[in-house]
């Protein structure tokens, strides 16, 4: 069987959950071959093997960390040349999609983004227009490059052969034109990543202030959830833009999405509509968010959210 290349997103050698999901998906399409780059890459090998990687291409070149997107695309282009994979899967993150884009230009392969599933015939399913329409698309020329959203499938444990092959990117000057000089973490630690969390608790205009977001955070922490925010809340400066859910923000698809004080404008829905279960808390009974909530509570979040946090903490006891 032909290889399916999987570009692995990792933090110091710990693969992101979404990377393990991509391996599970790759296994349904061919031989999963992980591509792991940058500092700490070799530390990821054991986990990747444990989650089904038959091959692990390791390239610890500093170029991958020092420059934006170009070197990763160059490495994948090299591997397309040497391994003739049946497809390349990248995470549907900002960088993953950009790597895919550059790779598409380099190799003439077609690019599909934001897939939530791929069939054995390499037809990708993509929700568009905020989930109102589902499109099945395929790549008609070149090696298919498909960016897959987090939470599209579950990681599957089951050891692959895990054969390690060291590779070295030959990045051109134009691949190395945009230098990353500093990375600054603004997020508070200890919470799961918004993009791949299985539970997300989001606050909106109804939260009322930056300080009051603490009650949203407390609820999130009681559930082990990530914190999201509507654009109204990030525009007001109450919560960081990185946490914005919706069109022009992050698109999330968790098992459970709790929207507190969010009216549910179409722009917000575009970022969360494919969540499995949706719970809404809003004092306006006419809020459109109730139209898509599996469970809605009409009430003041200032009393309901802390009471809910307390109740969950008690039940989890």
């Amino acid at each position, binding site marked *: 069987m032909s290889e399916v290349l999987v570009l692995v997103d990792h933090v110091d050698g710990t693969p992101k959950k979404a990377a393990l999901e991509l391996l599970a998906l790759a296994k349904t399409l061919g031989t999963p071959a992980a591509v792991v780059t940058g500092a700490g890459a070799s530390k990821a090998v054991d986990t990747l093997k444990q989650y089904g990687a038959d091959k692990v291409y390791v390239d610890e070149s500093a170029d991958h960390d020092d420059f934006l997107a170009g070197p990763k695309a160059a490495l994948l282009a090299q591997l397309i040349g040497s391994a003739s994979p049946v497809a390349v899967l990248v995470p549907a993150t900002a960088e993953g999609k950009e790597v895919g884009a550059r790779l598409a230009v380099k190799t003439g392969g077609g*690019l599909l983004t934001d897939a939530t599933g791929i069939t054995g015939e390499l037809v990708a399913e993509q929700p568009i227009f905020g989930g*109102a329409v589902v499109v099945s698309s395929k790549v*008609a020329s070149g090696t298919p490059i498909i960016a897959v959203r987090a939470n599209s499938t579950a990681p599957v444990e089951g050891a692959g052969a895990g054969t390690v092959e060291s590779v070295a990117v030959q990045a051109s000057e134009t691949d190395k034109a945009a230098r990353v000089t500093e990375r600054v973490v603004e997020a508070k630690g200890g919470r799961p990543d918004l993009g791949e969390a299985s539970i997300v608790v989001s606050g909106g205009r109804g939260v009322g202030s930056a300080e009051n977001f603490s009650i949203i955070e407390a609820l999130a922490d009681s559930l082990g959830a990530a914190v999201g925010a509507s654009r109204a809340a990030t525009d007001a400066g109450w919560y960081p833009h990185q946490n914005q859910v919706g069109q022009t923000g992050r698109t999330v698809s968790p098992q459970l999405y709790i929207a507190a004080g969010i009216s549910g404008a179409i722009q917000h829905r575009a970022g969360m509509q494919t969540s499995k279960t949706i719970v809404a808390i809003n004092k306006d009974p006419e809020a459109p968010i109730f139209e898509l909530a599996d469970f809605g509570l009409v009430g003041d979040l200032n009393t309901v959210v802390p009471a*809910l946090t307390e109740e969950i903490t008690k039940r989890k006891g």
Partner: protein
Amino acid sequence: MNIVVLVKQVPDTWAERKLKDSDKTLDRASVDVVMNEIDEYAVEEALRIKEAQGGEVTILTMGPDRATETIRKALSMGADKAVHLVDDALAGSDAVQTSAALAKAIEGLEYDLVIVGSEATDSRMAVMGALLAERLGKPQLTGARKLTVENGTATIERLTDNGYAVVTASTPAIVSVVEKINEPRYPSFKGIMAAKSKPLETKSLADLGLEAGAVGLASAPTQVVEFSTKPPRQAGQVVKDEGDGGAKVAEFLASQKFV
């Protein structure tokens, strides 16, 4: 400082957006159209740099005849001139093909910066900055919430999942911006009047020296096989808080095994 700003005309997010049954492409004719929202921030950023450092702002768009409405809006905000890439053969081009046509058009212009919005509300792919950087062989400075340009160096704060990265490159460079970068101005009455007489050049594929076979639906490297309209989510139970709201939500979460 000469800046090219890419703008895209898109269906209004509030409109009911559809694909056409005939060729499975976006129905652009039957919906209200607007300038892609983030592109307004791209135009604004270019105008601010021009106002501080001088130079010229050129709007570039690819789209049907109707896209001139969007071009006029960008000109009324204060851009100097525009190029409209319009050709029936472009219809149905995917993002990668579109980037080939846009790159050709950009190559015919003098620029220190190309600024694009980070994503369009219709396709939401968020890849045009990267595609153009690769095509033009220029630095990719994408996802900028802050941009500074001085002495031939452009530096951005690129939004990341947990913060930001500082990314720097020499100009000319390709920049994409997110909506936290500035607050776009509204066109003034004077600006709207002035826009009517600003130069707007129309270019066809032949003008760019592109073969019709390189773009368009028939030769697109990606194809829509089929599509279906998803039934809207059904509203579930909605209850009123009577002092026990927290407990009611907790009960629901427990019934779904989340707690």
